[in-house]
């Protein structure tokens, strides 16, 4: 079965990203396909490679990135939500004249259409949020 996952909350503040991660991991381990993980609202903050949690805590960003690496996951960050919250990749940096990027290379910034497409292409949309 093909799943689409939507994450509406940022890391650490809310459990949503953790729940989404464990759901996604369990789905992949069961042999399901995850078509896309879409990060929306404050969820875009899950993609900041500058995150530095204390040593004894989980690294939510790296954990997503490792899962994506293992399973070739498509992790998309909403561009409009990212712009508002200062989540920047190379293209956005140049387009908006910013002096830095902060996105982890396993994530990509794209439009909301990617969420809608994921909902159309997948058998199930599972949303995690506040």
């Amino acid at each position, binding site marked *: 079965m093909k799943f689409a996952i*939507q994450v*509406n909350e940022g890391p650490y503040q809310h459990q949503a990203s953790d729940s989404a991660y464990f759901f996604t991991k369990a789905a992949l381990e069961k042999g399901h396909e995850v078509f896309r993980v879409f990060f*929306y*609202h404050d969820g875009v903050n899950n993609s900041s490679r500058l995150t530095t949690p204390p040593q004894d805590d989980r690294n939510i960003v790296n954990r997503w990135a490792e899962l994506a690496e293992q399973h070739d996951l498509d992790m998309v960050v909403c561009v*409009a*939500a990212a712009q508002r919250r200062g989540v920047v990749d190379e293209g956005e940096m140049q387009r908006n004249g910013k002096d830095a990027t902060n996105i982890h290379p396993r994530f990509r910034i794209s*439009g*909301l*259409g990617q*969420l*809608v*497409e994921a*909902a*159309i*292409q997948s058998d199930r*949309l599972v*949303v995690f*949020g506040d």
Partner: protein
Amino acid sequence: MSETIKKFLYLNRKAPYGTIYAWESLEVVLIGAAFDQDVSLAFVEDGVYQLTKDQDTTGIGMKNFSPTYAALGDYEVKKIFIEKESLDERGLTLDDLQHLVWEDEDDDWAEKDSIKLVSREEMTALMEDADVVFSF
């Protein structure tokens, strides 16, 4: 692109301005309209506050996005369901909400109401019937 048309239900349960959910979910509805799916919007609980008339955000320094709902008809989004019980609980009636319409090109561009007031039971049936539910 897939040929199948899915029944999309956007579930709106949150009030505007206090959090960004209402505005950013409306952005999804606008973008999603281009995908030619069978779209319905459900407003339940505090979600009904999104549609109140006379919103004026000048004093809080935020963009007043309530006029955007009036544009939904132009995006072919014409099925907007409001739960009566949610209005009642909040001391509201349909008169407190914006009047949303869409133009029917098959009927000489006549303006038709987009909003339909439904009971909780009807809302439950609508939810049951959807293929995909978007929550924000």
